[in-house]
């Protein structure tokens, strides 16, 4: 397999071996020809570039000269091309709001599923969990 190191002038920087592992984790896939492997790696790089630049351009992080998680999550939600990422890039809400939502749903007699659809569109500067932007 073509072994490509981390030099900037290489044709592709992502390691083909790792790409191959991910591809093979797909159960229906039997074999992958070398060109297909290369193309997938290269496409993934293009994808990373595209996701980053699109999110930066359309997001609010750039007000602070940054690319933030919420820029990405916003992209996944707003842009159809990136919608397949919506599940892994969920919007984040304040813990307190989430708890309020749960309580409300309990009161309304529904199962507290914690759907993020209702009131989660706040300023995503404060996020649940990890240190945000």
């Amino acid at each position, binding site marked *: 397999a*073509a*072994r*490509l*190191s*981390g*030099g900037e*002038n290489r*044709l*592709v*920087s*992502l*390691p083909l*071996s*790792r*790409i191959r592992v*991910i*591809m093979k*984790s*797909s159960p*229906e*896939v*039997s*074999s*992958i*020809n*070398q*060109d*297909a492997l*290369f193309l*997938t790696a*290269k*496409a*993934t790089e*293009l*994808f*990373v*570039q*595209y*996701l*980053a*630049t699109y999110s*930066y351009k359309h997001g609010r*992080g*750039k007000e*602070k*000269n*940054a*690319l*933030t*998680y919420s*820029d*990405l999550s916003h992209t996944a939600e707003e842009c*159809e*091309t990136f919608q*397949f*990422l919506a599940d*892994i*890039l969920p919007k984040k809400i304040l813990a307190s709001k989430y708890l309020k939502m749960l309580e409300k749903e309990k009161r309304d007699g529904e199962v507290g599923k914690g759907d993020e659809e209702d009131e989660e569109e706040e300023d995503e500067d404060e996020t649940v969990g*990890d240190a945000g*932007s």
Partner: protein
Amino acid sequence: MAERPEDLNLPNAVITRIIKEALPDGVNISKEARSAISRAASVFVLYATSCANNFAMKGKRKTLNAGDVLSAMEEMEFQRFVAPLKESLEVYRREQKGKKEARKDKDKKADSEEQDKSREEENDDDDERMEEEEQNDDEEVDN
């Protein structure tokens, strides 16, 4: 995604570099954003693979080929990738061909001073003589 012991993640350093090179200078990328992009990239690979595989199956083939991947890109609405991918593929194929011929020559000559000269960038040399080839040009780091 499959839960397997193998690492389904892509190397952080490489992902970071790709992002940095794509964005304007000096833009800060939060760790969370970086990690999110990395995950997104893995998902992208899975999605592309699955899509390409559908095309292979349609063609009654068990091996994914270049055409399948390109068709997948169109299907996934990443048509913008197709032209640059095709270009890169050509370069890649030339490189691979060069390496192959280099190995053939190597066997023929049984010359042991020929190392991995095939690491060099697109050399349009037909001859593939290994005389003065710069072998230390590229890092031979194994990933």
